[in-house]
């Protein structure tokens, strides 16, 4: 290996800058999972009886299920009895009524993460729901949004204030028995965000949720539900970080999106959970089920994700294209370094006529990491004239990492057209030398090449987010520069 690549390797192994811990009094339940714990969580959240029943049903299903083994990831058995299922920063009230009541220590934490909870200080028009461990600690701009009939609040609040909506949609896109982690989440989910955009309303600002794991030995099991009624539009952003710890922590979330006639939901994620240290110790196990349904005709759901964190990522944001002429999109950049393992991709399920989907996946592997794309495109018998285009590109940095592609195609309708393209390339010494000859050092050269590689996906992120994501990508690769 040349010195240049060696230098890169070193830069790649940078420090994780969000690894601090907040010293705050936290209320937790004892480790382990059983009916009592679920009853306790439900009681703490003052939930209606039907929801408790729902949770218990999911728990009993989960007990009969086994962890999925088909992912291209390796990890020791997870002891589900050794996890804390509920951890909440202590506060006198269940949820502070105003920002003045939020613990200043918490505010400081989020300021440090670059998330301003204080509405006065917000520069860009983004409404934020902030979730620490198992609870939402603040949601901004709620009243302005309410004027347009938009509901944006934590899941716990939605259960209290809009139980009919929650009951109507919860678990309709990701059934509790969908998979092992979905069942687990359904049993123990604690908080998350709820968005409801009524008919004909175009959400005037980006909605976002910031997830933070703080408590040791705890898991985070949030649940997000977004509903866009006819002709509604919403763009939603999600970000996440966690402290550095030697133990692995579990994150098993569910996101459900529902788009009615002519509605559009754009969902963007920048995932930066703690990836583990240089020896591969610690890091978040990220087992997430994200799925949207284009229920109405001409509806559109678009997933964009920038995945740089987590020790293990197992995640396939998918779209069920049920409405005629509906459109599903998946744009992904997954960057793995050190000992990270990512098995990520999407499922596009074409059911309606003239449905279209587009998949653009860019995997970047460095260090000793393994990066897999796994995707399924399915055209049902009813999916007349379904169209799919998939493009999966992998970029390798160094010679100790791996890139894998597992595309699956199932077509039951012969009018469906499904295209798949894939490339694998290595950042070549030729490219590096060329850049260096123009005066760019190895770090900048790699950042430039990687940015170029990921451009098609980055262009799909909302502006404010794209800048952050680009920075994150550069920092993830370079350490100090950024």
């Amino acid at each position: 290996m040349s010195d240049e690549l060696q230098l890169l390797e070193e830069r790649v192994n940078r420090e994780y800058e969000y690894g601090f811990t907040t010293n705050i009094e936290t209320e937790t339940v004892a480790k382990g999972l059983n009916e009592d714990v679920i009853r306790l969580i439900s009681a703490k959240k003052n939930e209606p009886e039907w929801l408790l029943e729902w949770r218990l049903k999911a728990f009993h299903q989960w007990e009969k299920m086994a962890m999925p083994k088909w992912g291209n990831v390796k990890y020791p058995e997870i002891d589900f009895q050794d996890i804390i299922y509920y951890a909440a920063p202590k506060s006198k009230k269940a949820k502070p009524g105003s920002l003045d009541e939020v613990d200043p220590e918490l505010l400081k934490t989020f300021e440090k993460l670059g998330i301003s909870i204080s509405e006065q200080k917000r520069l860009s028009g983004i409404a934020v729901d902030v979730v620490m461990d198992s609870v939402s600690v603040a949601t901004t701009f709620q009243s302005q949004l309410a004027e347009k009939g938009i509901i944006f609040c934590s899941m716990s609040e939605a259960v209290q204030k809009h139980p009919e909506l929650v009951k109507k949609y919860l678990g309709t896109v990701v059934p509790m028995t969908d998979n092992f982690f979905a069942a687990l989440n359904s049993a123990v989910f604690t908080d998350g965000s709820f968005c409801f955009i009524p008919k004909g309303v175009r959400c005037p600002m980006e909605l976002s949720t910031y997830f933070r794991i703080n408590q040791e030995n705890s898991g985070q099991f949030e649940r997000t539900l977004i509903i866009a009624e006819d002709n509604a539009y919403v763009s939603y952003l999600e970000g996440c970080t966690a402290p550095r710890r030697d133990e692995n922590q579990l994150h098993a979330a569910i996101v459900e999106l529902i788009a009615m006639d002519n509605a559009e939901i754009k969902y963007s994620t920048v995932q930066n959970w703690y990836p583990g240290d240089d020896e591969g110790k610690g890091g978040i196990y990220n087992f997430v089920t994200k799925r949207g349904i284009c229920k109405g005709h001409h509806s559109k759901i678009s997933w964009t994700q920038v995945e740089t964190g987590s020790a293990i990522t197992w995640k396939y944001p998918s779209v069920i294209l049920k409405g005629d002429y509906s459109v599903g999109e998946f744009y992904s950049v997954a960057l793995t370094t050190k000992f990270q393992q990512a098995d990520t991709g999407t499922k596009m399920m074409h059911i309606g006529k003239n449905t279209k989907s587009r998949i653009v996946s860019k995997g970047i592997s460095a260090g000793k990491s393994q990066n897999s794309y796994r995707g399924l495109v399915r055209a049902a018998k009813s999916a007349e004239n379904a169209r799919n285009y998939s493009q999966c590109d992998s970029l390798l940095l160094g010679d100790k990492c791996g890139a894998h592609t597992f595309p699956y195609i199932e077509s039951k309708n012969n009018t469906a057209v499904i295209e798949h393209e894939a490339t694998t390339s290595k950042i070549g010494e030729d490219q590096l030398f060329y850049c260096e000859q123009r005066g760019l050092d190895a770090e900048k050269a790699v950042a430039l090449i990687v940015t170029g590689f990921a451009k098609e996906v980055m262009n799909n992120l909302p502006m404010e987010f794209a800048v952050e994501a680009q920075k994150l990508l550069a920092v993830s690769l370079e350490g100090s520069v950024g």
Partner: protein
Amino acid sequence: MLSIKNIHASIEEKQILKGLSLDVKPGEVHAIMGPNGSGKSTLASVLAGREQYEVTEGQIEFNGKDLLEFSTEERAKEGLFLAFQYPVEIPGVSTTNFIKAALNEKRKYQGLEPLDAASFLKLLKEKAALLELDKSLLSRSLNEGFSGGEKKRNEIFQMAVLDPKLTILDETDSGLDIDALRIVAKGVNTLRNEDHAIIVITHYQRLLNYLQPDFVHVLVDGRIVKSGGKELALELEAKGYDFIKEELKETVTA
């Protein structure tokens, strides 16, 4: 400005340059010719600082500084420019953004502020016109899908924007049709001035017809064995390299 003294260089233990010496003064144009495998491109790589090439002996002075002490990017920022024989493609990075990054790195090195957007675009337009470069190429990914001629023109275009003190044209004429060759040569000639020295590495006379070098050197087996004026290139074109090899033999036996 460039003084190469008795340079020996090897790649993967294989000795390629075996005591090459060359002096280049500001404003001069030197042509380096020679048969395949004589070490022409190795010379370009050694000057630019390509990692795989190891200099085992000799010195190179550039503007009074020890060139070999500098990294590749420092050499570039000191004013050395290599026009590549095979320019690489960088998908997703526009030619404009690439040149902007390069130019601003150089300016930073010189203690200058980055060029503002308006001045940069003006500079770009001006130089693109010089190379008759289609403006759409500037917003396309660097060299991706460019024709051979466009790639070479893009190299000279970058040279024009970066304004180096020493340019090495590594077989810039290879793969060019007559029109492209004329445009490239015109570009180089326009950028020829008393502060800008050029080393032209080539197999053929045809680029030299346009460029009119001050000196022509013949490289054989890692050394410059014959130097002369531009007429030497014509002689080589007519007689091939064999006559030089013959001469060499005579010198050895004499």
